[in-house]
């Protein structure tokens, strides 16, 4: 029951954002936006803070945003952020990427991560939150 509703919301939001990826990114964007509260001490969509901004993070190579000082581990990881790599990273950042300065235990619930990643995927450069 939750999943079809989630897909519906994701489809609408992504459509509004001018994206056509609702088929590839499952998860509930609205729940994901709520879960993003956990990230707000360090991140925001459009500004670099303690952590780098998240606009355009999907398909970006980790540690490559100009104007943010990454750890060496992040800079040299060569990882590209996809639903899969984000899922592995967010489950346990320091296990997935030893030495990262994202010193956060992680998001243990797999469903939470799917929702969170659906939200991150809406943060394309042309999205409302990113302008």
């Amino acid at each position, binding site marked *: 029951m939750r999943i079809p509703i989630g897909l519906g919301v994701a489809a609408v939001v992504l459509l509004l954002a001018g994206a056509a990826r609702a088929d590839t990114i499952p998860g509930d964007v609205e729940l994901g936006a709520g879960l993003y*509260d*956990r*990230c*707000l*001490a*360090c991140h*925001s969509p*459009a*500004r670099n*803070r*303690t952590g780098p901004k998240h606009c355009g993070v999907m398909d970006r190579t980790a540690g490559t945003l100009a104007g943010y000082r990454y*750890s060496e581990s992040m800079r040299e990881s060569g990882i590209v952020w996809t639903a899969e790599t984000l899922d592995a990273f967010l489950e346990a950042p*320091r296990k997935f990427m030893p*030495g990262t*300065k*994202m*010193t*956060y*235990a*992680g998001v243990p619930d797999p469903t939470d991560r799917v929702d969170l990643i659906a939200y991150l995927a809406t943060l394309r450069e042309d999205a409302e939150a990113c302008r």
Partner: protein
Amino acid sequence: MTRSIDDTNAATGRILSRRGALTGLGGIGISAAAVALLGGRENLALAAGAEPTQEDITILNTALSAEHEAIAAYQLGAESGLLGQGAKSLALTFQGHHKEHADALAATVKKLGGTAGEAQARYDFATDGLKSEADVLRFAAGLEKGAVSAYLGAVPLFADRELARVAASILGDEAMHWAVLRSALGEAPVPVAFVS
């Protein structure tokens, strides 16, 4: 409300300065909170497996970076001209707590042989949406809620369990800020049984 906060501060100060006297670090220019923090950690340093690591320093520095930002955010709020007397004194009290957290974290990083990160020269807050006292309080509440999550995410990572205790102690303080700000906004102060 403000009075009870002041009373609490006074009581905390008394406890911390007594601790400072006990650990004998009171005279070397570290804040009372940092003294309490370091005193505890030194006592525990002998316990097997409790040694702080380079990674612990990284965790402390990430937390320090967020604390620096919170101090700047409260400064912005206090100077916004949007806060009434009550809200302004709340903002300055909470800013004072964040300064103590930052001092304590920086002192601990140095004590452990690391380099404490400095505050940025300027912070780029999204201030467009701040038009009323409630907007500023909501902005602050969001930061405090985030801080609770951030410390919750840091607690299990420390190799040194005493540092985890310190992070938990700061977490408790941020959670109180969050609750008081929610209350000032007319929202249920404590909306959940567990923070996440």
